[in-house]
């Protein structure tokens, strides 16, 4: 099963959904949006929020095109700076 997953990822590595830091979105707001969009608990949402704040960005999902696009739509509807990028 692990090998099959590796093969699938090698064929289609999907997209990384990335949330980028900015000085205007409030930290508690970003945490709230992560909880809403991804259904995460507060601890996980805060971990990613802090990663955005401290490291400039956080990879919040790795998905196929449609799901990644859906997440970017959701995050941008809350006015977070979110993009989908091919893994390096």
């Amino acid at each position, binding site marked *: 099963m692990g090998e099959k997953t590796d093969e699938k990822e090698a064929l289609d590595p999907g997209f990384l959904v990335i949330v980028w830091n900015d000085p*205007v979105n409030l930290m508690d707001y970003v945490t709230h949006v992560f909880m809403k969009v991804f259904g995460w608990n507060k601890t996980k949402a805060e971990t990613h929020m802090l990663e955005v704040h401290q490291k400039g960005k956080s990879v919040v999902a790795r998905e196929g095109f449609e799901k990644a696009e859906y997440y970017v739509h959701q995050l941008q509807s809350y*006015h977070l700076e979110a993009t989908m990028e091919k893994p390096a």
Partner: protein
Amino acid sequence: MKLLEREGERLVFRMSGREKTLLERLLSFYPLRKDGGAHLSRLAEPRLEDATQLLAETLREQKTELSAWLSRRLCDGGAFSPAGTNWRLVLDAEDTERLLQVLNELRVSSWVKLGRPAELDAEENEKSSLSAAPLHALMMLTGQFEMVLIHALHGDPDRPPGGQP
């Protein structure tokens, strides 16, 4: 603006007449930007062009829907009811999410129109021109209302409900 009740994600606030007027004035600026410069990727990927257009259309439609919701629920008073000399504001879960999206569009768009300053603090604000003052005020006040809503939803041990926006 004081949280009176929280039942699940249904929130009931008490607001003074001044707070209600301030909130309504802030919301009257929505949307501050008709187009938000939507982009799916930081890299120029030609194959994402169609999807980027779709994102821009989706965000425009969202603004139209939120404007209609604002008129129906908040500006025409549907969510407000008088309570003595004050007002009650009742928001269900969907209302709260929509109000957060509206407030944050105003906050982020103010920041964009100000030239995306790296510093938002008061000292930096004092250096700004008089013409930028309304945008600074809009950015700061919408942020205060956002925090009241988020603390009402999730609680804040350092700040009991009822803090002034």
